[in-house]
């Protein structure tokens, strides 16, 4: 999957995107960047819940779909 200069995966409509990080805030920032990118294309988000693995990693899976 291609990535932008800020290490944010490129959005492909209907395809789940996984983002991760070592803090909740880091993952939240990546999700925010994705949502802003999607909003420009008028896409709707599904999911996006930040999961904690109990160790040192946070992750989220978000999917963008056409409304």
């Amino acid at each position: 999957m291609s990535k932008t200069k800020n290490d944010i995966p490129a959005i492909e409509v209907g395809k789940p995107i996984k983002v991760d990080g070592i803090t909740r805030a880091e993952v939240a920032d990546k999700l925010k960047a994705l949502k802003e990118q999607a909003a420009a294309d008028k896409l709707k988000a599904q999911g996006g819940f930040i999961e904690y693995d109990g160790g040192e990693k946070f992750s989220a899976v978000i999917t963008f779909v056409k409304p």
Partner: protein
Amino acid sequence: MALTKIMGQNFRAFVGGSAVPEATNCQVTIQGNLEDATTKDSTGGWNEEQMTSKQWSVQVDDVDASLATLRALITRFNSDSKTTVGWDQTAGAQNREAQTAAFARSGQAILNDLSINANNRTTIQVTCQYQGSGALA
């Protein structure tokens, strides 16, 4: 200025990264276990306490009562396996889009309580409780 309040329907439990579908209620419990730390240095007749451990759990009522869900829940219960459980504010389609609210948290948890209530001529009601195992972050 009025404080912004969170409506109950927008506070949802998430299991395995997804909002629990069709649930009517969820309850989050975070508890600390205390130990009496009172010494002769304590003044004023008041006890002093210190936190010795913490625990958390998430209960979800009236989850989707389909055959597939019930089978999956029983399988999960029997497996003793941990899964990611947490909560967040929601919006969007079917009110399932996580909003990464400041109060959202998650961690690993075990399905330790599964109740099935089957009244005559009504859909069964399934309640699940996930007991946190390890940190909530």
